[in-house]
């Protein structure tokens, strides 16, 4: 009897792919690593494993360093096993495409004055994934070197940096492109996140706090986006230097408070977009030097010492729709030349009126105080902050500007705070 068994083409396809998935362990096997197992060393197991295998590291302490991952592997920790480098050197070195590191607790990276030892170093690799790692007692945390198309997701990097010369960066990207840095937490390192010659990087939802120097540091990196990050209480805030086409959106810069601290430091930045950010309680909100064609839109500057400090050579920037609330100085300028546009911002110290009730003040606002000019020239004069004499001088300068650029004004100041 001939049994007819008709198969729908779609069903055939599903069955086929199921067979393929079920069949794949035939080629890729899983290795269990634990203290009392057959395999108790990560290094030796990697040597035995074949490409595309999975290594499951069970809970325990593994005292190993210089672990070279030179084939596509998935290395996954179960219950956060501790990999202890005993301060002897680098711990993981990834030198292959398609490597995944997941759920490990890596501690004790060796501090060196000649080598940049990292907890995890990725060298010339593509499509890597580093996630759910916890790194402590480190020198450098995650160091990506000439790598691309990877993802650094949801890691916790906690350093105990004291001095700049013997500490490393949390996440460092060097000559790397197309990488996503998402939801990481970095604290207590030298620079939280550091980019050098790295293009098309996306940095989102990270927290970088209590770092010695910068929360985030850009050098010669173009076309990068960072958004929705929080930078708090870093030694010098965030520095963006010598880069082009950077987008900075919806970040929060808080409490970068100190004699040399900035919310954000811009140096030689061109064609960037800075919008929707919040700068709160920084000594200097944004320090701008030699940066052109930047759009500063819809940012909030709250309770800063200086909201924006322009050092020099900044042309064709536009400041629109920002809120300047209760800053000691809204804008500080050190030249008489102004080529930047201020329009439609809200200034908490604006005292004008709005007779036609269109929400825009009828009298222009001059955001630069003469005092900030004097302070730029002789920093010691800041001692006279909030003295009556200074208020009188500021008032007279505001009535008839002599020292500050005549055209530096917001001709359309908002009457109500922008929500």
């Amino acid at each position, binding site marked *: 009897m001939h049994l007819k068994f008709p198969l729908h083409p779609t069903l055939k396809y599903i069955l086929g792919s199921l067979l393929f998935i079920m069949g794949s362990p035939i080629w890729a096997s899983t290795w269990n690593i634990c203290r009392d197992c057959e395999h108790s060393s990560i290094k030796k197991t990697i040597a035995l494993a074949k490409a595309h295998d999975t290594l499951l590291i069970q809970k325990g302490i593994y005292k190993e360093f210089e672990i070279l991952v030179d084939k596509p592997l998935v290395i996954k920790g179960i219950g956060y096993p501790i990999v202890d480098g005993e301060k002897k050197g680098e711990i993981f070195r990834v030198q292959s495409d398609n490597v995944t590191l997941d759920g490990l607790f890596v501690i004790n990276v060796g501090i060196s004055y000649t080598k940049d030892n990292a907890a995890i170093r990725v060298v010339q690799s593509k499509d890597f994934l580093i996630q759910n790692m916890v790194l402590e007692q480190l020198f450098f945390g995650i160091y990506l070197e000439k790598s691309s198309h990877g993802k650094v997701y949801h890691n916790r990097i906690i350093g105990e940096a004291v001095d700049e010369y013997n500490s490393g960066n949390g996440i460092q990207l060097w000559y790397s492109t197309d990488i996503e840095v998402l939801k990481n937490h970095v604290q207590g390192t030298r620079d939280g996140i550091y980019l050098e010659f790295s293009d098309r990087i996306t940095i989102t939802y990270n927290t970088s706090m209590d770092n010695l120097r910068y929360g985030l540091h850009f050098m010669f990196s173009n076309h990068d986006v960072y958004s929705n990050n929080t930078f708090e209480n870093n030694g010098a805030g965030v520095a963006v230097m010598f880069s082009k086409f950077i987008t900075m959106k919806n970040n929060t810069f808080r409490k970068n*408070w*100190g*004699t040399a*601290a900035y919310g954000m430091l811009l140096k030689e930045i061109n064609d960037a977009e800075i919008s929707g950010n919040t700068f709160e309680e920084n*000594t200097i909100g944004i320090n701008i030097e030699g940066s052109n064609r930047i759009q500063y839109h819809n940012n909030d500057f709250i309770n800063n*010492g*200086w909201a924006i400090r322009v050092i020099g050579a900044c042309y064709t920037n536009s400041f629109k729709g920002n809120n300047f609330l*209760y800053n*000691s100085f809204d804008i500080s300028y050190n030249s008489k030349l102004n080529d930047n546009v201020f329009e439609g911002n809200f200034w908490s110290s604006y005292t004008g009126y709005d007779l036609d009730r269109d929400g825009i003040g009828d009298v222009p606002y001059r955001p630069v105080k003469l005092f900030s000019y*004097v302070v730029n*020239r*002789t*920093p*010691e*004069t*800041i*001692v*006279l*902050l*909030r*003295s*009556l*004499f*200074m208020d*009188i001088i500021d008032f007279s300068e505001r009535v008839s500007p002599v020292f500050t650029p005549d055209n530096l004004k917001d001709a359309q100041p908002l009457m109500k705070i922008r929500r």
Partner: protein
Amino acid sequence: MLKILKYSFYDLIRSRWSYVYFLFYLALGFVLLFLNNDVSKAVITLMNVIIVLIPLIGTIFGVMYYYNSREFTELLLAQPINRRAIFMGQYFGVAGSLTLSLVLGLGIPFVLYGLLRSNAIFDFTLLLVTGAFLTFIFVGLSFVIAISNENKIKGFGYAVLLWLFLAVVYDGLFLMSLIVFEEYPLDTFSLVATALNPIDLSRILILLKLDISALLGYTGAIFKKFFGTDLGFLVSMAILLLWTILPILGLSLKAKRKDF
């Protein structure tokens, strides 16, 4: 002395001006807190007012009271009372009642708005303490000026000039010298120049406590190192105390020698 102090004090407490002064601070405190709703911010705004107004009102009140009560003073001088006691009594009466107006006028709204539960209480106390010091200093200075000048117009003029000098002109000269000598290290100079003027000293003391000290940059770091420590705080309090004692000594010296 206590009796005269009591008399002067009650005389002023009952007078209209004391109430006006008290009500002014009361209104100021309430309005500031109503608009700000944040105790520590209100303290900052209050500082600006206190630094300028307290010396001015202390000066004018002191001169006015001295000239107004001159006949009564002459009457007292005819009695067998120690000269020092008469003038000291009057001085403490005026300064005390002004301080009371200040403390109550500002204290009541702040306490009502939950100062005791906020951590701005120390800043606020410092504000009141420096305010009290400034009152005592400027009432003392104005008494010395008044006792040295028979002519009321001259006395008033000198007193207002003194206030103008310490509140405004001094800072102007300070600024000029900072700019002229900007090539030189000015840290010690600015430290000393600040300490020499009670208004500047009070301003810096409060500023350093108000967490905007980082604004002061490198100079601020030096100030913080000096005024921010317990020793610096004690030193600056001692300077304020010296500023209070010097006019009092001058007053008693003048009073002893003066021929009425």
